[in-house]
């Protein structure tokens, strides 16, 4: 048997070829798996929604989403979102600021509590509010006495949505503030800036992209929130039904009607817009 001596260079090249061939196959299989699962699990349902929504043509679609109940549901969802997002932005900044810049008893606890809405099912949040503000609830008598309606009305929907979306802004802003440290703010103070000037001219510009990013996540979640809201809204079409609730109602009533899919398609479009905004902001956020 003759052994042709291979020089070191050839050996390395051969080894690399063999390794590359193996790697190439692994890569192909993984890519195929990812594509197939994305197509079936995510893309197909979305495409199907639009396909069904436009099954009766654009006219049918338009008629479906301009029924008074659906329009009202869209309107209600917009109002809830417009209230929830600014409140959560303010809340998020306050929490992040407190945790990042101060040492106080309960700081660790606060950090954990802020995350709670993420680990609790929204239905449970809804039920908690029911127990707290309901007729038989803890605050029920007080609210009735003062003629305040919380449940089965806008305040209840807003409160539950606030609960569910509370962590989004704080979660984005806090790590950034911790990473940036407080030197810039201290520099501003030594230069004579007052508290609000430090915030306005130094802190805020530093966290603006994270803030917007958190706000978009918060808005997307507020628009799509179903579980918690379904418990406290009372689900009256044309009165307390938000868009997700209205979609379910339409689907249950008329099963596979254009109306349900048309309403669903509007929600999907909001989600896609949020996704695009999110991607755009994420790239800015990373640069900061």
């Amino acid at each position: 048997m003759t052994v042709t001596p291979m020089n070191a260079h050839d050996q390395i090249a051969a080894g690399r070829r063999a390794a590359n061939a193996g790697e190439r196959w692994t890569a192909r299989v993984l890519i195929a798996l990812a594509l197939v699962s994305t197509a079936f699990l995510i893309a197909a349902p979305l495409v199907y929604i639009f396909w069904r929504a436009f099954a009766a043509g654009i006219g049918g679609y338009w008629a479906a989403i301009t029924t008074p109940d659906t329009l009202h549901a869209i309107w209600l969802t917009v109002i809830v979102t417009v209230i929830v997002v600014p409140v959560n932005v303010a809340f998020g900044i306050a929490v992040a600021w407190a945790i990042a810049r101060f040492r106080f008893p309960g700081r660790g606890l606060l950090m954990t509590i802020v995350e709670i809405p993420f680990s609790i099912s929204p239905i449970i949040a809804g039920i908690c509010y029911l127990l707290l503000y309901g007729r038989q609830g803890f605050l029920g008598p007080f609210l009735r006495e003062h003629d305040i309606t919380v449940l089965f009305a806008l305040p209840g929907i807003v409160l539950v949505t606030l609960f569910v979306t509370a962590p989004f802004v704080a979660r984005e802003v806090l790590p950034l503030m911790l990473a940036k440290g407080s030197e810039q703010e201290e520099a501003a103070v030594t230069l004579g800036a007052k508290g609000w000037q430090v915030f306005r001219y130094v802190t805020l510009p530093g966290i603006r992209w994270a803030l917007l990013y958190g706000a978009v996540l918060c808005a997307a979640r507020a628009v799509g929130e179903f579980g918690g809201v379904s418990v406290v809204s009372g689900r009256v079409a044309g009165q307390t039904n938000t868009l997700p609730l209205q979609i379910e109602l339409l689907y249950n009533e008329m099963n596979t009607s254009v109306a349900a899919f048309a309403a669903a398609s509007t929600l999907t479009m909001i989600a896609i817009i949020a996704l695009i905004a999110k991607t755009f902001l994420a790239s800015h956020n990373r640069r900061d």
Partner: protein
Amino acid sequence: MAIEIAQLRKSFGRNEVLKGIDIAVEDKELIALLGPSGSGKTTLLRIIAGLDWPDSGRLEVDGADWLSIAARDRRIGFVFQHYALFPHMSVRDNIAFGMTVRPRAERPGKAVIARKVTELLQFLQIPHLADRLPGQLSGGQRQRVALGRALAIDPRVLLLDEPFGALDAAVRRDLRSWLRSVHDASETTTIFVTHDQDEAFELADRVVIMGEGRIEQIGTADQIHDHPASPFVARFMGATIELPVRIAAGRATAPGIDTARIERRALPDGAATLFVRPADLTPVPDPAGLWRVKQVTSTGALLRPVLTGPEGQDIAVEILRRAAPNLSAGQSVTLRVETGTIFTETPPGQRGQAGQPSEINAIPLKEKQK
């Protein structure tokens, strides 16, 4: 502005970082706070700036009690170690910041601010960088902008935390002499923190050496180099060789060591320690010598013999190769001490009480008689 600091103490939790600091800084002086990390020098600087508050003590500037004044009202120029420039503002806006945030009544007009910024940019030799963002600048340029931003408020006192710590050696040297000229031109009382001896001694009028929350010594480069006030300072200044000696009638002796060149000192008889720099010990060939040459290495300019003493201890010394005697391994030598500092043993804890090293140990007799 003259700064007077007295009995300043500060603890973080159970960790006492300043254990009673006393310094008097004169008007227009340039002072370096020198010490290893953890010596409390940055904390002291931050207290002067109003970014930290002491637990007790006094801080007065031109007679005014600064501990009752908030940081933003002290008009301090503080330069941070990592510059802390505002990344979203141009160089021009960074420098103008301190003027633009003033209350409307005290704020100079836009044109005045612009002129002042332009002047500062000229003064700092960076007019071409006016419209850049901090992210587009090198470390040395950022340092200049940070100093410009601090000077723009006409600070009463200028404080710099490790101003050259994050720069490479060549830029450091440049900026060092530049900072000196900036100080001389602006005549602002300046304190800077550093752990670099060369930097401290080259730049400062007086150097304050800090160790573990205490001031070990205050003085000029020569004073501290020749007469370290404590074993800590001696070690810090490079006297890393410690030889046990006995004092008798003010003279230090030790077997195998020639101490004739050390001045007599007003020291009590008994055991003491001689602190010497490696370059201040000369091995002299002597057949009766008690030290042995273990090995000799050369860096070209310097010889580094390692010597073994009568008790088996190894020390490494440095001598100029040109002036060196012929040394080879195994040879017997006597150690001649060119200069050194003697400290008597002090029971642990005793020295710390007043925060002041016991002076009698350190000052040569000659000096004491003056």
